[in-house]
């Protein structure tokens, strides 16, 4: 519950106190009304009835009723205000915390559960805190009123109340214990449902293409069955509560009468009438107390859900962030743009390292490329540069300063990152290109257009009727794969970064667009350092230096021509790309010759490669 108190400001506590007062007055007014009705009943019995007296009492009752209503309105207004602001605050903080997670921390949570934690769980907490305090105050106040009046009666009657309370307590505990455990399962399976719905929508083409309707349905139905079973168990457990407590109230009344009979039968005849009156009074108060318990119950019924929800929210809020801002970095002008020194990386909990002893350098303005087989760790290596993951050991420097010294914003604003999977947001095209922190000012349309031109996206954007205002559908469904890649490239260009990171980002581009794009980058981002991961030799052959990776290690480095001479892994890759499968349509020699023909290109700095190698 301390989750909530942290969010209550002084002002809120004052307001909360006011709304509690409102509830108390509401109860007082409500309890006063019967006194005046009784008064009227007495008036009416009088011989000379004055209508004005009755009207007077009637007006008082009406005033009390209005007063009670007004108190309820004011109290309700305040409490919904506090409750909603509370939920808004928690939601905002949970989201901020989520955004502060790097991929490393986010991977500790199931991503479908993150959405639930950020939405549904917070609503449960809100519901409880909007109704809970008022129910509690109402119940407690009634309880105190009744208890004070009950205080001076025979102790033996108190036993009956005690027994009834004990029974109610046991009932509540049993129900809550049963429900809370299953409620946890309900939450888990709701997460699974969420995940499966997400997978279903994301993979709907595959479901269609494979006629996998039955398969998909079976998997969904299995989850749904489990969710339904747990739901029913929880519902059943909770549904015992109301009848159980009502039975307790009636049972208590019966017990009071039975106990009364016992007490009266043992007392003197003379004392009996007053004892009988005590009993009637006591039973009415006992009912009042139990009524308070029913009010309490309505609040308590929400508790299992609220406890679990709070726990799930707290898990996020309390999760430590591993990757944090550094103290600030001192940039050296003549240092390499990026340098790795003996970097190792393994995913947390994994037995083996994904990257082993990676060392390389990319000087300012250089183009450095990585190539290697599927799953060799190329993408992971790129993820380390903007600190999406933290290297397990070794040192990564940008402009001569350790990346851990940079403020994260400072570090990442130097980088234009183009991910392997073209991730677009449901926004306009312009909004997708002008994405990210750019030092406090939004880009104008001209800059966005310029970036799109460099990213080879301008032409197809203009073909859309709404141009840059075209809405991008979920996952970029209204753009082709190559177009999506060009949009994500434009997004990186729009930031005008010092360092570009391309994670196999040209894979869906045809060779011509690929080439035009690299040409445009060379012209418009002349001083920038390019780090490229690619599968196609054509994309990287003019890089200043190429690193060949195999199973997490660098096994070769040099220019295209050097590697063609001395790196067997690289040679194999090159061969596999230019030699047809099965049917050889171009003779080997011819292809390789044409490959080497590029060496004479004037803008290829073949010498620069060697300087960069440490």
């Amino acid at each position, binding site marked *: 519950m301390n989750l909530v108190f942290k969010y209550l400001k002084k002002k809120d506590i004052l307001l909360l106190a006011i709304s509690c007062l409102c509830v108390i007055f*509401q109860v007082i007014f409500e309890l006063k009304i019967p006194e005046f009705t009784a008064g009227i009943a007495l008036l009416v019995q009088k011989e000379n*009835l004055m209508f004005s007296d009755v009207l007077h009492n*009637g007006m008082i009752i*009406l005033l009390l009723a209005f007063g009670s209503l007004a108190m309820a309105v004011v109290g*309700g207004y305040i*409490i919904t205000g506090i409750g909603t602001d509370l939920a808004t605050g928690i*939601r*905002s903080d949970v989201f*901020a915390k*989520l955004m502060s997670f790097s991929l490393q921390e*986010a991977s500790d949570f199931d991503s479908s559960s993150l959405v639930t934690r*950020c939405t*549904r769980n917070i*609503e449960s907490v809100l519901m409880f805190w909007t*109704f809970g305090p008022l129910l509690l105050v109402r119940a407690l106040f009634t309880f105190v009123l009744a208890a004070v009046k009950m205080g001076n009666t025979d102790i033996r009657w108190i036993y009956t109340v005690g027994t009834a309370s004990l029974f109610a307590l046991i009932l509540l505990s049993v129900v809550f214990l049963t429900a809370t455990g299953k409620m946890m399962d309900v939450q888990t399976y709701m997460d699974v449902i969420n995940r499966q719905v997400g997978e279903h*929508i*994301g993979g*709907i*083409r595959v479901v269609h*293409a*494979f*006629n996998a309707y039955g398969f*998909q349905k079976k998997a*969904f*139905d299995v989850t*749904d069955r489990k*969710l*339904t079973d747990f739901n029913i168990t929880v*519902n*059943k457990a909770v549904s015992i509560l*109301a009848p159980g407590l009502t039975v307790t109230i009636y049972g208590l009344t*019966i017990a009071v009468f*039975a106990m009364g*009979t016992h007490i*009266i039968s043992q007392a003197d005849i003379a004392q*009996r009438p007053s004892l*009988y009156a005590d009993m009637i009074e006591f039973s009415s108060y006992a009912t009042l107390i139990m009524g308070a318990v029913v009010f309490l119950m309505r609040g308590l019924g929400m508790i299992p859900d609220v406890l679990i929800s709070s726990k799930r929210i707290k898990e996020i809020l309390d999760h430590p962030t591993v990757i944090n801002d550094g103290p600030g970095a001192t940039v050296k002008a003549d240092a390499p743009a990026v340098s790795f020194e003996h970097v190792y990386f393994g995913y947390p909990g994994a037995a083996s390292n*994904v990257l082993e002893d990676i060392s390389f350098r990319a000087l300012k303005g250089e183009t450095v490329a990585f190539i290697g087989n*599927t*799953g060799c760790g190329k993408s992971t290596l790129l993820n380390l540069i903007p600190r*999406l993951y933290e290297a397990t050991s070794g040192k990564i420097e940008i402009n001569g300063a350790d990346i851990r010294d940079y403020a994260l914003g400072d570090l990442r604003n130097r980088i234009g990152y183009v991910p392997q999977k073209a991730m677009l947001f449901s926004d306009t095209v312009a909004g997708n290109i002008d994405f990210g922190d750019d030092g406090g000012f939004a880009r104008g349309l001209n800059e966005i257009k310029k970036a799109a031109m460099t990213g080879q996206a301008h032409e197809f954007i203009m073909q*859309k009727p709404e141009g840059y205002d075209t809405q991008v559908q979920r996952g970029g*469904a209204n753009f082709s*794969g190559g177009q999506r890649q060009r949009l994500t490239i434009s997004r990186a260009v729009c930031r005008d970064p010092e360092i570009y990171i391309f994670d*196999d980002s040209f894979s869906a*581009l*045809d060779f*011509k667009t690929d*080439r035009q794009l690299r040409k445009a980058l060379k012209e418009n981002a002349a001083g920038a350092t390019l780090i490229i991961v690619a*599968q*196609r*030799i054509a994309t990287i052959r003019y890089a200043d230096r190429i690193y060949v990776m195999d199973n997490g290690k660098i096994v070769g480095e040099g220019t295209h021509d050097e590697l063609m001479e001395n790196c067997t892994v690289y040679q194999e*890759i090159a061969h*596999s*790309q230019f030699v*047809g*499968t099965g*049917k050889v*349509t171009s003779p080997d020699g011819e292809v390789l010759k044409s490959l080497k023909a*590029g060496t004479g290109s004037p803008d290829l700095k073949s010498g620069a490669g060697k300087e960069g190698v440490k």
Partner: protein
Amino acid sequence: MSGGRELLRKIIRQNSKIIVLSMVCAVLAAIAQALLPMQIQRLGDYLQQNMGGDLGLGDIVPFLRSAIALLAVFAFFFITQNLLVAKASGYIGSNLRVDLNDKLNRIPLSVTDKYMVGDIQSRFVKDVDTISSSILNTFAPAPANLIKLVLLLIVMFMTDPFMTIAVIVAEFAGLVLLAVVVQKTGPHIKDQMEALGSLTSFTEESISGHMVVKAFHCEEDMKKEFDQRNERVSTSSKKAQFLQGLLQPLLSFNSNLSYVAVVVTAAALFSMRSGSLTIGGMAAFILYAPMIAEPMNAVISFVSALQQALVSADRVAEVLNAPEMNEDVHKKTDDGQKVEKLSGDVEFEHVTFGYEPEQIVLHDLSAKVKAGQKVAIVGPTGAGKSTFVNLLMRFYEPQNGRILVDGIPVTELGQERLHDNIAMVLQDTWTFEGSIRDNIVYSTEGVTEERLNKIVEDCGLSYYVGTLPEGLDTVISERSDISAGQKQLLTIARALAKDSPILILDEATSNVDTRSELLIQRAIDRLTRDRTSFVIAHRLSTIQNADCIFVMKDGDVVEMGKHEELLEKNGLYSELYHSQFEPA
């Protein structure tokens, strides 16, 4: 409002038995509950009368016995009612979720592509929850309350018609006030649900695009946007919650109003010395006033809950009533028998298509592919290559022209039969949380362990699978560190497992290293010797040994032929081909 009412009506119809049964239970419980105070009253009276004489616990046993019996009856029916409702609510929710899930498969892609994941998720979970938890809870006690109301009114009328009218007028005045509040609440509940849906969608997208958000240091912007949507939720839910919270106090105000009406009318009647009202009659009415408020209370909560359920029902019905794909989609063969496989001739006849009708992507495209041919489709990005495949798969329907497989128009073939004959690897790799085995075998039936191992080997996955602790049974999820290339290999393996006469590879190997690709290519070539295959790719190694290459540009097939023929033509293909050797 779209179909929420019908949906609720349907649910009520389907559960009519349970509803009636729980209503009966509620009535019986209410009768027992009404008789109980009378028993206690009788016990009290007995005590009062016999106070003067000998009194022992034994004397009241008959009273206790009948009171406890009534209590047991009450408890039995109340609990039974609640258990019935609990169980039925669970199944109502389940049926809605299953219907929604089934429905998603029948909605055309042009519609589902516009769905936001988070919004749909909140319909599956939150809206279904609201419907299932409210509908029976409100319906079950309704008749019991109605009976109470009617009985009370009869008793009141018999006591004094004037007074009864006064109470009814007072209650009615209060009800008007309540009706206004309830009516005002409706739109705010709708706003709240919509705001929550939009917030959920945004959250979902921020989480799936987490990597980009981080890399672009966009946390602040995302938070700003989130806070804006959060504010919308806050504003709408403040209003909705406040108005909903008013119901309870208004109800007690209502019953107080009837108090006043009772006493004032009574006093007026007395002061006029007319009518037959007695003091006792008035005392009775003072008791009736709050009693009549209780069933009224229930009626109002019933309306309010129904209103909330209606908002959610509208959101669920919107998906359930979405337009469906053509009827033939799920059409099986006439006799229901498994037809022999098609051979794989594919023909496009004057096909014209645009995702938006005014924006044509394919212009009058005609092409013919013989069974067993390997066709490569190349062209600049956005030329319509994937569209070609989308149409063949009938993900979309052409505006003009037709597509034939084995000479049969695909519209006659039925989508299910068509898809049975096509194995496809899509541009977007898609895996789900499940074992690698499940991801590969997927919906294909009868894949033997031996064949599975062969496929894994052919796709170059053996090494990767070998490094996993549980091999093929290792569960992969988005948290697993599986590379994009490995995911592509999995999806290729999935298509190979399906073993169909037509194979479509849409940029299937773009993230796979070329050595692995070569191996896969060989495996595919072996497998597709007698099969028609369509390959969209940019890499030469993938396309140059095709039987026929379609070169597409701006929605037209501009060149067609073998690799060497096209090179000699010196057209677009040759330009694309040579651009890979030119320096940037």
